[in-house]
Each structure stands twice: as structure tokens, then as C-alpha cells.
């Protein structure tokens, strides 16, 4: 039986992290999961520093975006998870060398305040002068998910960098995190925001005057990948934990937290569209990851900050 201590570093929100561990412990009661939960930046800083000091403490890493995973992989820090059963999971959700694997589907689309003078239907609509000074988005300089959006925009032929420059011209602002975006749109300080799905759905469910809109061109997504460090001290528990995350039980559990599952055969949370109906911007994961650094740079040249 799997037992012992498992050290999990994650950037999941507080509530989710706790729920996930409870669900895992229901299956593996003998594993004590110690969690370090913070912003992606803090989690990675800590891990990095531990590595620099020669003794990384994390067993499992569960963070918002793949870009950072790629960097760790390039450093040879991640274990190949050959034990995983990935039959049910679309290949685009995991690394082809199986060093990391997505655990849920978090899409990014538009969130609109009900008082908005003009409801955008597409990304392009954000350039509409009616929304001048009304747009807020998370900054890719601080948020991994936002980095994916910018990467996807810039590689979509119809949008590209001119679109991002247009956003700036339309006086869009970039803030530090998704929470701040929701805050500004829900309170009506800004009318439109670029936001992850579950925050918008949760807020709407609580009665906030916001609506989640899938842009015509398609959503972007992150998969909240999980990985096992090759220095993991409790390998069996780590493998069990990652297996649990991508297993049907784990996927069903994450829908209760308000996330889309990875597989189409699992019902999404109530009020969410079907997974199959989601349209995505075409993304070349490899190119996106490799170009992330340059994208950030270019974004900061346009947006500053």
C-alpha cells in the first residue's frame, strides 16, 4: 500500500488545494500530503532556490501553466511518468515525453459586465472604440496563463501582434492576476476582461453581474499540469497522486470544484457548456513554449510594466 509523506507544491487556489487532497486521501488514507501553496511565482521561486541549495523538497508539482514545466524539463528535473494510463486523454494535454500532464481544462475567454455598453463577441471586438479604456487583462509578465493567451493571440494569423498593439491603443490595462480582473469587471470599474472560465462562472453563480463569453475565434486554455520531480523522495505516493488527478474519479472531483474535465465523457459542472462545444484558438504548444520568453519581452515593450 502507498503510504508516507508526500510533498506537494501547487499554485491552486486555497479551497481547491484542500479539496483535492481530501479526495486523494479518501483513496489513499495512509499518505500525508504536505502542501506548499502560493502564487505560481512564489512556488517556482521556492523550488528554484531549493534546487540551487542542492536539495529540492517537492515531490509533486501542480502549477498553472506548462511554460515553467518546460524549463524544469529542460533542466532535467522532471521524472518520466511511464506508469500513467493516458488512453482517455487527448494527446495535446500532455508532454509527449510524459514529464508533465494536464489535469484539467482551464479556458480563458471574455468576461463582460452586464452594464457594458457593447458586448464583444470576438477578440477582435476588443478593438472597438466603444470599449476604449474599458478592458482589463492579466499580465503575461506575472501570470503563466496570461502568457499562453498572448502567445496564442500573437500566433493567430487574424490577430497577431497588431491586435495586441491595438489593445494598448484602446487603452487596455494589464493587471497582476486573474483575481484583480474579476474584481474590476464585477464591480464595474472596467466593462470587459480577459479571464479564466471558472472564476467567471463562480461569480455569476453567486449573483455578480458578469457573463462569460467565448470569443468567436476561440478560447485559449491551460491544463494545470502536474509533474513528479526526479528527486522525489516518495515515488509511489507521487505516482499515485498524479494518477489520481487524471483518473476518472479525479476528473469528476475537479468538476465539483468548477473546472472543465479533460475528457469529453465526463460531465462538466452545472451551467457550463459541453466540453466538445468549446472552440479553441489553434495553438502549437511547442512553438508557444519556446517563444514564451520573446513574447513576454515584446509584450512588455508594448504594455510596459
Amino acid at each position, binding site marked *: 500500500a502507498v503510504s508516507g509523506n508526500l510533498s506537494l507544491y501547487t499554485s491552486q487556489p486555497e479551497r481547491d488545494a484542500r479539496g483535492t487532497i481530501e479526495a486523494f486521501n479518501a483513496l489513499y488514507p495512509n499518505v500525508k500530503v504536505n502542501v*506548499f501553496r502560493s502564487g505560481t511565482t512564489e512556488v517556482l521561486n521556492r523550488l528554484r532556490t531549493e534546487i540551487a541549495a542542492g536539495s529540492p523538497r517537492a515531490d509533486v508539482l501542480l502549477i498553472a501553466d506548462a511554460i515553467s514545466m518546460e524549463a524544469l524539463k529542460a533542466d532535467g528535473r522532471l521524472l518520466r511518468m511511464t506508469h500513467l494510463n493516458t488512453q482517455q486523454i487527448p494527446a495535446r494535454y500532455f508532454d509527449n515525453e510524459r514529464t508533465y500532464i494536464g489535469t484539467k481544462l482551464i479556458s480563458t475567454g471574455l468576461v463582460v459586465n452586464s452594464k457594458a455598453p457593447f458586448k464583444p463577441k470576438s477578440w477582435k471586438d476588443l478593438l472597438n472604440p466603444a470599449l476604449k479604456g474599458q478592458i482589463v487583462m492579466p499580465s503575461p509578465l506575472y501570470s503563466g496563463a496570461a502568457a499562453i493567451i498572448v502567445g496564442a493571440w500573437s500566433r493567430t494569423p487574424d490577430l497577431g501582434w497588431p491586435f495586441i498593439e491595438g489593445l494598448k491603443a484602446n487603452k487596455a490595462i494589464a493587471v497582476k492576476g486573474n483575481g484583480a480582473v474579476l474584481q474590476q469587471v464585477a464591480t464595474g470599474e472596467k466593462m470587459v476582461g480577459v479571464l479564466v472560465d471558472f472564476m467567471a462562472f463562480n461569480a455569476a453563480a453567486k449573483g455578480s453581474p458578469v457573463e462569460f463569453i467565448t470569443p468567436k475565434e476561440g478560447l485559449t486554455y491551460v491544463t494545470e499540469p502536474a509533474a513528479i520531480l526526479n528527486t522525489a523522495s516518495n515515488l509511489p505516493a507521487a505516482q499515485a497522486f498524479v494518477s489520481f488527478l487524471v483518473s476518472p474519479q479525479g476528473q469528476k472531483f475537479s468538476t465539483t470544484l468548477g473546472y472543465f474535465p479533460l475528457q469529453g465523457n465526463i460531465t462538466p459542472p452545472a451551467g457550463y457548456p459541453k466540453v466538445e462545444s468549446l472552440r479553441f484558438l489553434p495553438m502549437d504548444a511547442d512553438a508557444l513554449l519556446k517563444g514564451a520568453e520573446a513574447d513576454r519581452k515584446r509584450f512588455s515593450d508594448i504594455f510596459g510594466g
Partner: protein
Amino acid sequence: MSGSRAPAQERWLLWLALAFLAVFSLLPAAYLALQMGLALLGPTRQAVLATLMSPDAWRASQHTLEVGLGGATLALIYGLVFALFVSLTPARPRQWLVFAFVVQALLPPQVVALAWTQLWLPLKNTLIAQGWDSWQAISNPLQSREGIILLLGIHYAPLVFLTVRAGLLNLSPEVIEAARVCGASPRSILRRVILPLVLPALVAGGALAFVSCIGNFGIPAFLGIPGDYLVLPTLIYRELSGFGPAAIPSALVLSALVAVLAALGMGVQRVFLRCGSSEVIATRLKVPPFHLGRWQTPVAMGLTLWVSLLLLAPLLALLAKSVSPGLGIALTWANLSLEHYSYVLLHNDATLRAFVNSVSLSVGSALVLAVVSLFLAYQMAYRRNVLLRRLMPWIEVPYVIPGVVLAIAMILLYLKPLPLLGWSFYNTLWIIFFAYLARFLTIQLRPVLSGFMQMPREMLEAAEVFGGSFVSRMWHIVVPLILPSVTAGALLVMLLSLNELTVSALLWATGTETLGVLVFGLEQGGESAAASAVGILSIVITLLCMLLASRLGRRLPEGVLPWRA
């Protein structure tokens, strides 16, 4: 040198104090310095130099200077005017004015920034409702350089206020009266007599405000990132987020830049203090010498309103958010909800742990630092220990560098099991505790040092002559006499460490959450209402502490509690 007659008991205490300094204060500072050197000379040299030479670094340095100078200037003017009004005229209600003015600086800056940005919205909506549609497109004016300077200035004005007020209270009333009987008008007295005399205090307060402004992360992060205005602390954070392999060395070197700027600020103060005359005057300004005539009452009322607004508005905004049913839903008595409180208090065991941890950390570090500062200051001020005096600038390093950098240093130092002992402080409360000890030592030491400076030397010498042993001398004479200054420092340390975020964000582990970490986590997960609830709870605790201190403080001498008039 009089140090040569330090008795044996004191000598081993001196060694203990030195050991404490070495382990908790100098080690992180020296380690950081070493790492900075390595970063500049080692294999990461290219990347570090690239960061250092990058336009962003230049821009951020320039911005840091701007907000430092701007914020300090604003704090200087605002704090000075307020201090002049409160100390030199019969301002009423003086107690409330001073309390509100000083307490606002003790609220966590990011909370204040948040509340302020929220205040913008109702204003804007009102204007739009009046038909000013074009206002819809106007971004929050606080999200700009001017906004950052404004908030920093207001936030740190109490630092200037407190030092200037102390200076004013130490003015001999006769100095002002002498000018009056010479025929000088109040304006001319202010310009030619009072201002030059409080100049040293003013510069000291200004330097402190400057150092605090350039080190502040919360306000520029909240206002500067949307406003496209980067300063060094936010740049360091961004570099670390970017996660290039060179991130840590670059961050170290960038924080060295912050430290250099801070050192410049302190240097200016030293120069000024050397020029300034430091005549000690015994009599105190009891009766306010000036009266604004018919302006007195309106100005007093205006200021009362203004400081009350500054204190209460953020608190109310936070409170409203913590009881609102959801974001963007208009708050009414009917839909007022305590759900967030019940969530953080009843359904999240981390909350309770965080409260316990934060309170233990803050009380613990206040206690330890109080004891340590007592011995350090005794050796520095009374025994005139040269070595300790030389080490003084290093003690400030852990305070002025960004918290995240200090946290990295702590991880690097304490991750591995200790040699010989075989166990590690990592992932325990101890590592956060050690970091707090390093970071807040200077806060605690400063008032104690000045307390020793102000105490007549002969009082301690009498204790030596009549005393039996060092221990009883300390216990019966030195401790009771210096207690007010120690208490003042310890209270500041407690308040600062209770809401500390940037250091503990990297150092906590399961079971060792702190309040700052908890709020940060909730905020990040989009649960800002729950975050506000925790914020309100921690402010309530803070206020309770202050109230308690005030109660106890009635028996303490004047000037111990900064918020008492």
C-alpha cells in the same frame, strides 16, 4: 577606552549579543552580499549584466528614485504641516487627530491601496449617472506615477510627523518667545526660527520615508502594474516570475541597487545631522504658542474630517467587501452576508493556524528582539562598544532589501540540515521566525538606542556604584528605566510582523501559514471577499493590541506610544 572596564559578566553577554548578531543579522546580510558578488563575477555574469543594463532596469531605477523622492517629499510636506498645526496651535481634537494620522500607517499598505482604488469607482459612477458619459473611459487616476506617489506620501507621512513632532516638543518655548518680543511675525518666526531648528528631525524623517518608499512593494504592485509603471521591487518580482535561470542572481543584484539607493538616503541624513546643531533643551513646549485666529476652527475641522476619512474609508471599503454577497452586487442591509466570515473562521482550519502562527511569530520576535536590543544598545550606547557601532549599517540590510530576496537567502542558508545537529529548520516556523529577527532588528534597536542616549549616564553609573551584581543592576535599574523605549520598539515589531507577507510567502509550509499568506492566497484564488474578512479580523486584532497598549501605556512615560498625543 571605558570599554576596557567591562566586567566579566558583561563580557560573556557581549559575546552572546555578538553571536546573535552574527547568526541572525549579519549572516543573511553577508550571505546576500557574497551571492551578489558571485552573481556578478560567476558564470551568470552575462545574464546579470544584461538585466542590469536592460532598459527595464534603468527605467525601474529611475521610477524608484521618482517615487522615492516624490513620496518622501509629499510625506515631508504633509507630515510637517500636520505636525506644525497639531503642535504649535491649539488643535482639537488633538488626541484623535494624532491617533488617526498615525494608525493609518500601521494598516498593511496593499489593503490601503486596494481600498483607495475602490473609492474611485463610486465617484466615477456618480459622475456617469450625472451624464458625464465620457468618464467611463477614464482609468483610475491612482494607477499612475502620481497615484503611487500620493499613496506612498500619505502612507509614510506619519514617519515624518512623529520625528518632527518630537523635535517640536523639544523646542524651548523661550526660543519662540524670544523671537516674538523681537518683533517677528508668526510667519517670520516659522521661516527663520522654527523650521531651521527642526531641520535635523525633518531630514531624519524624510530619509526614513525615502527608504520606506523605495522599498515598498504593495502600493506600486497594486497601482503601478496596471498603470504601466515599474519600480525596482516590482521589477525584481517580475524577474523572479519570468523564471529564467538567471532570475535569482539578477534579483540579488537588483536588490543591491535598492540597498544602494537606501544607503544614499541615509547618507544624506548623516551629512545633515553633522551640520545641524544638537543642543539638548530641557523645557518642553507645553502651551501651543500660535493661534490661527478665525481660521483655527475651520482648519481643525477640515483636518479632522480628512484624517478620519483617510483612516475610516479604507476600513469601511474593506468591511463592505467582506460582508457583500458577491462581487459587483450592490450591498443592502438585506443581502448583507456573514458567509465569508463563517467560511474563514469555521470551514478553514488554516485560518486559525494562521492567526496562532502570526501572533506567536509577532509576539515571539518582539520579545526576543526586545531582550537582544536591550543588551546591544547597552553595549553600544553605554559601554560605547566600537565593534558593535561599526556593525550598525549591516543590521539595516535585511530591512531595506525586498522581502522575497531575504526569503531566498533564508532558504539558501537553512534548507540543508544543520551541520552536527542533523536537522533542518526548513518548513518549520523557525525559519520564518529567524527571518523576522533579521528583518525587524533595526526597527526594535533604533528606539532603544535613542532611549539609552537620552537617559542620563549618571543614572546607570549610580547603579554600578551602588549595585551588587550585573544581573540585579540590569533587572532593577536598567530594564525599568529603558522599558518605555523597548515597548515602543516591540509594539512596532509586533504590528509589522503581524501582517508581514513578502518574506513568509516563500517560507511557509503546511501548518506554518501566516496571516499575510492566507490573505494573499484567498485574494489570488478570486475570493477577495474572504480575504477582506481575514483582513478585517487582523485589523481588529491590531486595534485591540493598540488599545491594550494604550491602557497599559497610561502608566508609561509620555511619548512611548507613538499614536498618543
